[in-house]
């Protein structure tokens, strides 16, 4: 009987079984950032424990940094204190920090794959739920809390119970204008925000096999929004081609050995899954959320659902509360709604391919009057490539604020915040109440393609209509 990648990686990293029955799992790669690690370092100091394997932990600063002016000290004293704490913690422990002047700083889930640190067959954790992103490399990657960050720093292991594995097969061909983001939002909408509880998701099928790495990273990034703590894609030639030549990727003879090893972790053809879900690519439209949970979404041409269509009373109440918060009415179209802000960026859609895909559409066009449009590349490496390829200038000329890398308005821990009940067309990952920095701010999640169409018209727009003569 065959095994899944999840099972193989789990077994390869098992230290043993703890007295309470949980597995002690070895962690191959650990990332830390400034928000969830200082507490862990403090706990270590209190207990007098050293960092056991500093060479397996990598640090960056992403959540709190300003994206306009990064000269220090930052205006926000608390933000300055957090970056200073990260620096001293990393220095004392001997942890590699990709700091602002490094040229390699960025959102932790961007730089791990970009630098080639996240590799197939690894267990990867970080004090951040979107660590699921790294599963796109063919790894078992998941978010943890600060006490667990301490556990990893002190022991390079965690106490965990294995998840079940659900294969999510996306078959067929995506229609024009449909991207990895739409696939993810469609899956979450279909299975529910709680649908993945207890599961790791193996994304498979012809659509995923053809998807480039940046698309796979987007897909796995959003696994957690459907409650799956891990999402992964089996490593294949696309994975290896992406990794080859990256700074932390093996080289020379080591490369061939690594590829052979990586291949061995892919799920066996006769692997047994706890569940299999089939998704038809043809059913997926450019998808936009309308509510306060990522599963409240519709195809861009659809009207907003009536609460009477809800699956149960609980969902009906959630929808009613969401309508009240969003100030929307059931039955009305989402398309045509006037937006105040457009945000393109985050660990979900702040990658090179995201900007490459939409730059040609922006060329010669301009952001609509009265719309504030932010483009925030997810990493310094991506920002440099966008400058080199002329993408950054296209965004600037189109009226976008082209900003410095960071998490920015995804969670607004830096100065990039919505004001009042502004409506934001956002390529980020969460439409929770207050998520983008204003307790009454409103977020619509969408792909970069829908976001640029919306930026140009100032209203929620279908890219297939805004760019009719373009090969989307």
């Amino acid at each position: 009987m065959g095994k899944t990648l999840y099972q193989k990686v789990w077994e390869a990293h098992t230290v043993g079984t703890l007295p309470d029955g949980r597995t002690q799992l070895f962690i191959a790669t650990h990332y830390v950032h400034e928000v969830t690690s200082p507490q862990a370092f403090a706990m270590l100091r209190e207990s007098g424990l050293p960092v056991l394997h500093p060479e397996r932990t990598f640090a960056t600063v992403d959540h709190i940094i300003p994206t306009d002016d990064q000269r220090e000290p930052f205006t926000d004293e608390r933000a300055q204190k957090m970056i200073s704490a990260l620096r001293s913690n990393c220095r004392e422990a001997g942890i590699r920090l990709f700091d602002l002047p490094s040229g390699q700083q960025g959102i932790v889930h961007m730089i791990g794959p970009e630098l080639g640190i996240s590799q197939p067959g690894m267990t990867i954790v970080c004090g951040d739920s979107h660590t699921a992103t790294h599963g796109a490399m063919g790894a078992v990657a998941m978010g943890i809390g600060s006490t667990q960050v301490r556990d990893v720093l002190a022991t390079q292991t965690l106490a965990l119970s294995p998840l079940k594995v659900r294969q999510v097969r996306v078959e067929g061909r995506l229609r024009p204008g449909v991207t990895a983001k739409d696939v993810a939002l469609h899956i979450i909408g279909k299975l529910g925000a709680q649908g993945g509880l207890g599961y790791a998701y193996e994304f498979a099928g012809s659509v995923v096999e053809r998807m480039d790495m940046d698309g796979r990273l987007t897909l796995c990034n959003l696994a957690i929004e459907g409650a799956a703590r891990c999402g992964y894609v089996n490593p294949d030639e696309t994975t290896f081609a992406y990794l080859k030549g990256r700074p932390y990727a093996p080289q020379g003879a080591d490369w061939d050995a690594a590829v052979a090893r990586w291949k061995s972790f892919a799920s066996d053809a006769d692997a047994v899954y706890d569940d299999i879900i089939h998704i038809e690519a043809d059913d997926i439209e450019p998808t936009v959320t309308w509510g306060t949970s990522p599963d409240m979404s519709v195809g861009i041409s659809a009207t907003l659902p009536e609460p009477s269509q809800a699956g149960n009373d609980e969902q009906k109440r959630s929808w009613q509360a969401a309508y009240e918060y969003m100030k929307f009415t059931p039955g009305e179209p989402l398309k045509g709604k006037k937006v105040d802000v457009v945000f393109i960026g985050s660990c979900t859609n702040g990658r090179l391919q995201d900007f490459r895909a939409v730059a040609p559409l922006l060329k010669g066009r301009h952001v609509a009057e009265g719309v504030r449009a932010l483009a925030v590349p997810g990493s310094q490496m991506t920002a440099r490539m966008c400058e080199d390829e002329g993408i950054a200038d296209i965004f600037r000329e189109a009226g976008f604020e082209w900003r410095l890398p960071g998490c920015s308005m995804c969670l607004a821990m830096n100065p990039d915040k919505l004001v009042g009940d502004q409506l934001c067309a956002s390529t980020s990952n969460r439409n929770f109440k207050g998520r983008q920095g204003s307790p009454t701010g409103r977020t619509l999640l969408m792909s970069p393609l829908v976001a640029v169409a919306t930026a140009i018209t100032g209203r929620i727009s279908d890219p297939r209509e805004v760019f009719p003569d373009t090969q989307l």
Partner: protein
Amino acid sequence: MPAILHPITQITGKAVPVPGANMDTDRIIPARFLKCVTFDELAGKMFYDERFNADGTSKQHPIDAPRHSGATIIIGGENFGCGSSREHAPQAIKRSGIQAVVAESFAEIFFGNSSGIGLPCVCVNAADLAVINAKLAAQPKTEWTLDLQTMQLSDGATSYPIHMPAEPREAFLSGRWDAVTELMSAAARVEELARTLPAPACNSSSPC
């Protein structure tokens, strides 16, 4: 590091409802409260924007109602604690005087974070949850007993079965919910894996 065990078997006290599916950790503790290097400032801040308007006036959330004052148990809905992995969420709950959370289901990361800091999260089925919430509305000052030994939540008159996976339950009962001591005891095997499992290393000619 000495192995100090803190068994958690029973929690008693009043309960407070925090209803609704998908109660995300941004709502449990908004991101602006994460601008700190310790968890010390989180006491009293749980569900802040659910409880207060921007001008500081009360939204009359049950947490702030006198009838629920001093509650030690939260009664939540489905997928409680979803979203961000911020341990600030269970820390804010625990530091605000809550000792256990009862809900229909929990997000994995929240559940793990809560277990690791000694905050038991137990599930009840949807039908029982509705009955419990009705009782809570009718008799908010009821004293509840949550027992991890018998796996029952009781109001003295009626008991409702509660659920938690066997491993974390054992960790609570044995007092080993803070796993770090256990994790340090298999050092030889950990080092063997550290030697055999590749660590990411910079192979570039330029510094990385």
